[in-house]
């Protein structure tokens, strides 16, 4: 990580002035010097974001079998025995092949482009009523189980940072860039 440089050093002031494109009011572009340097330890503690390329996936792992146990205790009540969803939580499995039909079912298996999102979201947000309660091993395990429910991960295999990144989600290529405006004179292209 880049070292902290005190804001009031002449070097930093000049660099900042250049960065901010110091114009006529050049004197006003000196840095404000507010805030304090973040320590590596506090950044590490706060940074729970996992990228699709696997940045920040923690050590640890678990199998779908172990995940079934976590799931039954902590998830099933809201998401159903087989991830079919319920009154308190959306479906987590099923729906593959349904996206182009009149009744699409969007789930982890049918819709999500990246398996990393499942790890990241489960760790930060689930179980809904007690987010943050799961250990990294439990998150890997229950992620393996939800993927397994969708036919995307074998029962006995251990899910960890390496094996998670190898999973190709069925709808990985199902997304296109925003091509709006899509109506009237402003439409970017003729009808799809």
């Amino acid at each position, binding site marked *: *990580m*880049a070292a*902290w*440089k005190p804001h009031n050093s002449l070097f930093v002031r000049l*660099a*900042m002035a250049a960065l*901010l494109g110091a114009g006529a009011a050049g004197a006003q572009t000196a*840095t*404000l010097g*507010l*805030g*304090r*340097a*973040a320590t590596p330890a*506090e*950044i590490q503690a*706060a*940074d729970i*974001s*996992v*990228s*699709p390329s696997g*940045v920040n996936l923690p050590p640890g792992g678990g199998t779908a079998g172990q995940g079934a146990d976590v799931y039954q205790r902590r998830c099933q009540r809201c998401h159903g025995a087989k991830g079919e969803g319920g*009154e*308190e*939580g959306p479906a987590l499995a099923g729906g593959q092949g349904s*996206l*182009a039909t*009149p009744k*699409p079912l*969007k789930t*982890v298996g049918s*819709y*999500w*482009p*990246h398996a*990393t*999102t499942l790890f*990241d979201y489960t760790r*930060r*947000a689930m179980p*809904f009523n007690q*987010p*943050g309660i799961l250990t990294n091993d439990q998150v890997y395990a229950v992620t393996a189980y939800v993927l397994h429910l969708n036919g995307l991960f074998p029962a006995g295999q251990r899910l960890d940072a390496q094996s998670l990144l190898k999973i190709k989600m069925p709808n990985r290529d*199902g*997304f*296109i*860039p*925003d*091509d*709006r*405006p*899509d*109506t*009237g*004179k*402003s*439409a970017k292209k003729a*009808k*799809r």
Partner: protein
Amino acid sequence: MPERDLPRRPGRRVFLQTAALGGTLAACAKQDGDSAADQEPNRLGKPVSDYGRRSPFEKAARKFRESKTPEASASFTPLQDCHGILTPASLHFERHHSGVPAIDPKQHRLLVHGLVERPTVFTMEDLRRMPSVSRVHFLECSGNSSGDWGPQRAPDVQRGHGLASCSEWTGVLLSLVLGELGVQREAQWVIAEGADPCKMARSLPRKKALDDVLLAYAQNGEAIRPEQGYPLRLVVPGWEGNLNVKWLHRLKLTPEPYMTKDETSKYTDLLPDGKARLFTFEMDAKSVITYPSGGQKLSGPGFHEITGLAWSGRGRIEKVEVSVDGGQTWRPAALQEPRHRMAFTRFRYPWQWEGGEAVLQSRCTDETGYTQPALEELIAVRGMNSNYHNNSIKPWKVAADGSVEAA
């Protein structure tokens, strides 16, 4: 006259004026005699108070559906009861994913890290000391009007369009803060995370982050309400509501978007061929008539002012047209000035109601020349399952008895 109302050191002139006035009043009293003594005196009103309340006669309220998980739910602004362009903070729509956290601003920190030269922690006090700006912007959930895709139309403007509100936001430009910390060249995205229990997170492109995004701490002249992100939230002008991360506590600069749950599973727009649009950030231009609107009843034929709101995520509203004959003819409405960019614009249109059936609708055009489409135009391109970003024209049908419903 009570002494405290006088200037502290009255000059001679003031003193003389006061004396003269006192004399006049005394003379009047004498003339009136005692005639007022038989009447009840006016009773005094309530004394001054520390925080204002609305009149007990006023009942405008947010609406929400019953839910087993009301912490992951939404409440809708009563647009039919709002005036001008600002939404009272107490009526601003809500969409939470794990409830409203209780945050002590003294404990709250904003951590900015990742691809910046100087990873930094800011207190709220640090942010309040920075050069500030105030800007009027709407927020709209991209799921607003999602119920209107199908044949079952929302019965009133609150349930159909109430996931949109408009406020004056005060805070610091994100570009200023990022400039202070030194953004590295490889930083193409900013991952914004809230301090709510689920740590809701979204990816924001660098270009927008360095343009007009606000780190906002105030709304309509007072601290942001807890439901709106107290003590700090992102305001991303014109972009879908979910990106305006509330209870903001962390920004990470990264080379890639993080594909969070709320930008993949949710807030992506499914098209008829099964592909889905990703990162549909801008809110297309949209307008709706708030009076007369569904559920209301016109009190009688004659003059009525048709009024409503228009907004665009791509800039200023340039034109609103109103039709009172089911879309056969359109005439321009008057637009309230000033018209802010990416903000509600109030429109007004004088109307003589003859007493028969009528279909009323509005359509707006923004500064890019884009004109709000009819629902059929949207469906022709997007099919029935894209759910989000329904900005179509909203017709209201007035019946002969004056009652109004969704057409």
